[in-house]
């Protein structure tokens, strides 16, 4: 599934059946390349983040979470944590480990069950998830061809 298709999906609380927010963005961790967290648009100010491990199911129409208490305020997350907003890859520059710019990430293709990322999409190419080395506040770093 492409992440742009997941954006705007409702996140529902399984204990109250209420909508707690909608999917706005994601954060990514390397080795293996996977979605580490979902950033939600919630009512009121600020962003909230949901760890991927707390996602009960990622359905075609909605994302289920056990209880709304699993949502964390973005301000309480350490920048080193892979769920921190700094690890959002969308619209970041792609740099190879040899310092070559390969464009900008426009989308990611992931598996809804496992959260594994199969490809990072730029304007020109699809970069396999296995080549991802890191996602930081400045750039997405991938391995360079030998």
């Amino acid at each position, binding site marked *: 599934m492409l992440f742009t298709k997941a954006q705007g999906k409702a996140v529902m609380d399984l204990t109250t059946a209420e909508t707690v927010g909608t999917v706005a963005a994601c954060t990514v961790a390397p080795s293996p390349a996977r979605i580490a967290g979902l950033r939600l648009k919630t009512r009121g100010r600020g962003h909230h983040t949901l760890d991927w491990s707390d996602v009960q199911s990622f359905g075609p129409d909605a994302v289920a979470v056990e209880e709304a208490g699993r949502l964390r305020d973005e301000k309480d997350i350490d920048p080193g944590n892979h769920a921190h907003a*700094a690890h959002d890859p969308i619209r*970041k520059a792609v*740099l*190879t*480990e*040899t*310092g*070559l*710019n390969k464009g900008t990430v426009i989308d990611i293709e992931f598996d809804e069950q496992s959260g594994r990322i199969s490809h990072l999409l730029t304007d020109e190419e699809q970069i396999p998830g296995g080549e991802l*080395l*890191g*996602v*930081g*506040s*400045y*750039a*997405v*770093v991938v391995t*360079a061809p030998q």
Partner: protein
Amino acid sequence: MTVYMRASEIAKKPVVTLAGEDIGQVKDLVFDASTGSIRCFTLAGRGLLAGPLHRALLWRNVHALGPHAVMVRDESALEENDTAARSDAKEPGGGNVLGLAVTTRSGVRLGIVTDAVVATGRAPVVAGYEVQTAEHRRVLLPVAGPVTVSGERVLVPDATAQHSAGDLGGFGAAAESLRNRLHQAPQED
């Protein structure tokens, strides 16, 4: 294929970790006059109001040098301070290769070093120098074979004069042909 760039183009490039964080920006290059290579970079912080970052980045701690960024493994690649950048100010020659005369072993002065040419990639090295000749032309001279650097001059093999390049596009071919020439006739110098 090796990609070459002028050392002066490295200035202003971001220093990025493999985790994707930018931890600084290259401010200046410090040459090592005893070897003719680059000793370290001095850094500036990132951002509009950032001042100098008083931590040097040693050449050997660079993970890779690319056309768009200087890559390092992580933040521990930076030194705790910038003494590495200052230490050789007392040495003769001011610790700088720029401004030195390039002379062949038979005593022909080719010109003055105005910049260095660096081979980018995982093992970046100084591959040559940009030299301003007596006629104020700028040529790129590859370095190969026995090159000796002192605080006064850079001594290169005689064959170097026949293998200069006008621009970076032709530099790779010039470096290659000089290496072949020196390989075929090592006793010439």
